[in-house]
């Protein structure tokens, strides 16, 4: 699978909305590296910088879905490499349980993801985002977990 | 033909041969070492490599006294004796009709037989 497969949008083509929370120290830097290495991924992915993946409250994830996001991905330092030593360990537990609950409620399990991307893994960042965007595109619009009032 | 895959042995024995760090303490502990063609540490290595067939033919299966010294001493929790026992069970299960019925075993035991040997005999022969 080639890394750089983001095609420009065709008119009328379904474009998902993807929110990516990236920790400042590893994944945001990894995304920067993807950028400086010109490793493309779809423009559907919009990154929000947080100090550590453990800053991401499940509310933020649900808020994104409420607002019509089609997929939410969290990226942090690899377990054991957290800038704050233990933050991503908590992230891992929290998101594991949250995603499991969303799955239990019948929300498509592919809509959420956690990936560990280090500051050196620009290629992994790009590959991850390409893959996630592809998955979400295949899933289609988030209908089960959005607030219909939004966007009106 | 019995299933002779590595997975079968691991499943029956419940062990993880990858934990082995090749220290050899099992073979250093084994009281039946000299009666064996394949030694406890070799059982671990060979099962890991998937070389099951020669082990099924090995006289070590019957030389092992099930004293579990190797299990007790192993610093990594690999349980070589469980592997040997699993292989023995595989052989015995194949020979279903020839196995020693449990009720006959007491007759074969005299007063001098140590308790551990009795237990081992049950384990070895009545599976």
């Amino acid at each position, binding site marked *: 699978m080639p890394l750089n497969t983001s095609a420009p*949008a065709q008119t009328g083509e379904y474009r998902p909305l993807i929110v990516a929370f990236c920790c400042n120290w590893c994944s945001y830097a990894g995304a920067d590296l993807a950028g400086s290495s010109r490793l493309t991924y779809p*423009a559907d992915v919009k990154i929000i910088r947080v100090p550590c993946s453990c800053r991401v*409250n499940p509310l933020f994830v649900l808020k994104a879905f409420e*607002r019509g996001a089609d997929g939410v991905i969290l990226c942090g330092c690899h377990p054991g490499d957290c800038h*704050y030593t233990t933050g991503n360990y908590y992230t891992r537990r929290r998101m594991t349980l949250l995603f499991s609950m969303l799955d239990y409620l019948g929300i498509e399990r592919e809509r959420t993801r956690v990936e560990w991307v280090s500051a050196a893994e620009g290629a992994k960042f790009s590959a991850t985002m390409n893959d996630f965007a592809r998955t979400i595109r295949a899933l289609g619009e988030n209908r089960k977990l959005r607030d219909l009032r939004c966007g009106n | 033909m019995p299933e002779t895959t590595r997975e079968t042995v691991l499943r029956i024995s419940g062990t993880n041969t990858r934990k082995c*760090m090749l220290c050899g*303490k099992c073979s*250093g502990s084994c009281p039946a070492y000299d009666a064996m063609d394949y030694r406890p540490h070799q059982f671990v290595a060979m099962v890991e490599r998937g070389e099951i067939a020669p082990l099924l033919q090995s006289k070590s299966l019957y030389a092992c006294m099930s004293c579990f010294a190797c299990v007790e*001493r192993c610093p990594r*929790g690999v349980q070589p004796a469980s592997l040997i026992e699993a292989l023995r069970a595989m052989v015995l299960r194949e020979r279903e009709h020839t196995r020693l019925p449990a009720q006959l075993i007491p007759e074969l035991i005299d007063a001098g037989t140590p308790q551990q040997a009795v237990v081992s005999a049950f384990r070895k022969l009545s599976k």
Partner: protein
Amino acid sequence: MQKIGVFVCWCGSNIAGTVDVGRVVEAVRQEPGVAFAADYQYMCSDSGQNLIKSAVKEHGLTGIVVCSCSPRMHEATFKKTAAAAGLNPYMVEIANIREHCSWIHKNMEEATEKAIVLARAAIAKVLKDAPLTSGTTEVTKRALVIGGGIAGIQTALDIAEAGFAVDIVEKQPTIGGRMAQLDKTFPTLDCSACILTPKMVDAGANENIELFTYSEVESVKGFVGNFTVTIRKKARSVRADLCTGCGECTEKCPSRKTKNEFNMGMDTRGAIYIPYAQAVPKIAVIDREHCLHFKTGKCGLCERTCSAKAIDFAQEDELVTRNYGAIVMATGFQMIDPSGFGEFGYGKSKDVLTSLEFERLMNAAGPTGGHLVCPSDGRHPKHIVFIQCVGSRDTSGCGKPYCSKICCMYTAKHAILVRDKYPDVSVTVFYIDVRTPGKNFDEFYRRAVEEYGVQYVKGMVGKVTREGGRLKVQGSDLLNDRQLHLEADMVVLAAAIEPDPTARSVASMLTASIDTNGFMTEAHPKLRPVESPTAGVFLSGVCQGPKDIPETVAQASACAAKVIGLLCKQKLVNNACVASSDPLLCNGCSSCEKVCPYGAITYEERELNDKGVRRTARVAVVNEAVCQGCGACTVACPSGAMDLKGFTNQQIMAEVDAICR
């Protein structure tokens, strides 16, 4: 009402080549709160920054969004620009439209759309920005080193050398630690005491160093730059100011049955004693548990003997409270007790020894005066078996899962020393792996094999039994596919090392974290290996992980450098993006405290006025000097009382909203 200025950078063609910056400017002008928007070729250049500064003044901007490269690149630059224009530097947000946009998208339409969305998110965030000020704290110019082994001594010497006062707390009556017990050191085989004791003397004599021997840390309060530590100076029953260290008393003492710790209990000492000849400080101490005076009220021979009148039976423990700017953990290690491994017969036969006991047995100042004899009957041994990895790399529960790192080398050292001094004694070493990474280490091990004829057997011992006054060793020889049954006179166990048990209680006083093996956790395993995650707490020596003497000394000096760096500062500038708890929302449930890696959260009872309802509540308080701003606490808090400045819940949700609009 906020007035936001948006500055869109072209970055030459880096951004402008893919993003229609003009359209971005047009789009953001429509955003509520935006009072000014402009684009410029290089926003980070002097003229770009001047554009920002003059816009702030001209339009009375209260916040700034710069759409440019990654904040990791120029956030600091634009914060300075804002500060120069009279704005609070935390009223600046960066929209990363280069690395996260123009450089990865090829389609102009698409990239422009995304740039607008990213700009909107930054605007949404800056609208909820609050001016932040970093607090500062004074630094107490004094360091505390806990543990007086080679690690603690080296760290203290280096800090003292830089001109700062430093105290060493050591629970034993003398500094010196484990290294003082060693005979020779690998791979050079120089005498341990010869290289250690001058350092001990230096530490004792240095005017910047104060020693608290026979003392323990009682309590720790405070935080980086401002610790308050109470030290318990246990009663020596000997006045330090009067004792001359002559040793008269120690010889007269009639109670002689106490095991001598220094010689690993292989001989005895008096109830009043000086640990060893080179002890620093060289002051006697009474072991009250074994002293006849304390047990029966009689005796008092030492008191009568002492011409300096230094004996003081009425002496009491003394509590000393001092302030420190930094604390160094140098609590060291001990050897595990291998009697859990019944197969090796440790404790059953006196001729089965640990390596540290063997070390004393070989030492000229040891229980046998350096003569290698079997402890059971004093005979000269013919064959010695060394067993490596006793309790190391062991997940069975009795041992330790890690490699103790130093055993391969000291076992080779022991083998060489034996063969060198007693060529008639044969030596067999059972090993699982021989690990010798280190300068001149492998050469040393090879010398043991090639020059000294030490038998290295790849395999492990399964059983050591006593037979006719000798030892029988049964083990595997894997390379030769045989089981060995050897006769031996002594068996030496290279038992695993573990952190000193006192480290745990000290660490919990410091709120410094400990890993599953009891070693201190580093702030970062690679990049900050001598710092604890708890600010102001530093790590020196084996308390952080197994290491040999050169490594320990290197780390000790590295640790000192970090401490000096801290003590040099006049003031500590705190991180401005710190957590803070709303006392009206706080449940006092302690969830945040549990996830804080820095121990920055404490609780206090506070009188609250909750919209007219008065109540007293237990609420969380964040120490801003210690908080590093990770935000783990904010999510652990169920009521949302805990928030993170600069990355508040509202800010992040505003970004989410803006992106999903």
